[in-house]
């Protein structure tokens, strides 16, 4: 059965299963993990389960290398976040970190073995201009200089055009909410910001509260993203749920908060696919409650068929003839969810026509 992505999913679910792998399965595991951008996460799981010494030396050296890379990524992220805080020092605006950088600075296990390039953070929309100005003074400049792109971001999106530092080349994504303004769902950014938690040791730095962190990750994967790192993002969710799932009120909070923020649908998908693909422990009561976000039956089975394929790494060993159509349909869906048709069609036409001369996104 090709939809199992064996042995990667099996080992992610249960690292001790790696004891049964022969050398050609290790070969495949390495290849699948490389393609899914999950090599360092895998390495982290082996370390955590104290299994590193049972990894064949040939494979082990690449796990060690992936660890080095993830450590460097973490160091770099910490450094960059300090630079951002310094740039915004005078403004008195707290920085709410999102995604990878948030996992690293908040020191949740999800941040170990997680590779990312951009530093994402959120500030109140009313302060956006001030933030942008302050960052510009410290060397970050807007990357999309085409007037149409600038308008696209500033009018419709949930973030400024990415800002790149002129010397270090690092990229910041400055958000004011978590979904495009033109999207179907409207989680209230005020609620997210006001619930954000302090990061010990960093006075003006915050991260989302645990439930919001999970919901943002779910929203990004199931309502917005292009799934190129689908399995990596699902592994993030799995790791967040395992980490926060021990806390007493977490699961109640999670369902409650999903309803409050208009995000019950992404949460339903998140719990469904982490349970099914990664055996993430979700209490029965929480799973029952999450059914509030369940789509109608037909849609649910269609989405199941699509995500079960598109969430797997884009590797020969995981692809079937239906994988490419599934990815394409989800890509179309993600755009449809981002923008209503009367905005989307002209945007895509424009993109397609310009694609010949200018390959830069969006």
């Amino acid at each position, binding site marked *: 059965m090709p939809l199992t992505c064996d042995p990667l999913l099996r080992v992610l679910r249960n690292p001790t299963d790696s004891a049964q792998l022969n050398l050609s399965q290790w*070969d495949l595991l390495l290849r699948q993990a490389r393609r899914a951008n999950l090599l360092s996460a895998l390495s982290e799981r082996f370390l955590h389960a104290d299994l590193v010494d049972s990894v064949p030396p040939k*494979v082990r*050296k690449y796990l*060690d*290398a992936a660890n*080095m*890379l993830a450590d460097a990524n973490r160091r770099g992220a910490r450094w960059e976040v300090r630079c951002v805080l310094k740039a915004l020092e005078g403004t008195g605006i707290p920085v709410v970190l999102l995604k990878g950088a948030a996992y690293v600075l908040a020191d949740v296990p999800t941040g170990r073995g997680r590779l990312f390039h951009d530093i994402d953070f959120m500030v109140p929309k009313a302060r956006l201009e001030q933030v942008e100005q302050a960052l510009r003074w410290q060397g970050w400049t807007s990357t999309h200089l085409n007037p149409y792109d600038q308008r696209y971001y500033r009018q419709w999106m949930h973030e400024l055009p990415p800002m790149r530092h002129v010397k270090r080349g690092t990229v910041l994504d400055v958000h004011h909410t978590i979904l495009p303004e033109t999207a179907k769902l409207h989680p209230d950014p005020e609620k997210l910001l006001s619930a954000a938690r302090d990061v010990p040791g960093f006075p003006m730095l915050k991260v989302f509260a645990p439930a919001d962190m999970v919901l943002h990750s779910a929203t990004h994967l199931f309502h917005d993203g292009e799934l190129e790192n689908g399995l990596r993002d699902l592994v993030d969710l799995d790791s967040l749920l395992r980490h926060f799932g021990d806390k007493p009120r977490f699961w109640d909070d999670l369902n409650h908060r999903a309803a409050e923020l208009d995000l019950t649908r992404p949460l339903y998908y998140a719990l469904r696919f982490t349970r099914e693909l990664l055996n993430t422990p979700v209490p029965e009561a929480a799973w029952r409650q999450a059914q509030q976000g369940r789509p109608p039956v037909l849609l649910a089975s269609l989405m199941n068929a699509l995500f079960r394929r598109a969430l797997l790494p884009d590797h*020969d060993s995981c692809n079937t003839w239906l994988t490419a159509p599934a990815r394409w349909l989800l890509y179309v869906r993600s755009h449809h969810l981002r923008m209503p048709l009367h905005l989307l069609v002209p945007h895509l036409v424009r993109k397609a026509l310009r694609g010949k001369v200018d390959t830069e996104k969006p």
Partner: protein
Amino acid sequence: MKLSDFSEPALTRQLAGEGLVLHTGPFSVHVRTTMSSVVQGLSILYRDYDVSHMQGYADFHVQLVAGGGLRRWYKPQVRFLFDGFAPFKPLPLDQAFPMFEWGLNWCVANHMHNCLILHAAVVERGGYAVVLPAPPGSGKSTLCAALVTRGWRLLSDELTIVSLDDGTIVPLPRPVGLKNHSIAVMKAFAPHCTVGNETRDTNKGTVAHMRAPRQSVEQALTPARVGWVVFPTYQSGAPARLEKLGKAGAFMRVVQNAFNFNVVGVKGFDVLKGIIDDCACYEFSYGQLEQAMDVFDSLAASRVAEKPAQKTA
């Protein structure tokens, strides 16, 4: 089994089918291709390398395939695939073999972060290695090619891999890349050396590869300690000149030529510091290969005089 055990037709069949695992230094590379220029390049330049059938494991799985669609007929292209994924844009078809070499460098530089990787040539004699870090155009590959035709062992012409465990150099002897004038220069300097087909109009100009000496390939698993770091510069007509460099400056210049210094962190810093502390660092300019050879011969002799009978492993 050696690659030379395959006749060219047999090699063509093997590479078009299940492929062949090529062992270069510490790496095993599973190669598949139907491109005749790659088969030819491999049979000329890799004949002394161990190969095996794909059984179980290989570090890297690479393929060179023809560009699809209209490109089959109109200005045909070649694509390098790393386990099905294309890290580079396609190149014109006649650049297939250089693309294989560049692709292999990419594989090493992108996956070996448990080592410090320098953009430098490195050769060894009497147990000690000379690291030659330099930007392109400094004559580093030509110098390296010339040295290995005069008894120095080739460790690598492009990627110097430094072990973070003990600071020794992990050999990766592969064909030496030559560019433009240096192709003719090498053919004149060492008429007995084997240089593969020339490829014109690449983004580096005309390129060709020189086969690595057989002894270097056979000793690929023997690491070497760094004895010298030498920064070469080719200057037409200039006399050979070796100038001692301060350690701190040399350290910083090596860092500038490192691919992954930011990744290896403190460990990389400490290892590199150890190397620089223990070796001699020079600036070297030359205009004539013969003169350069003399300078390197006396460098090697100085180490032997200083510390006789060093073991190599």
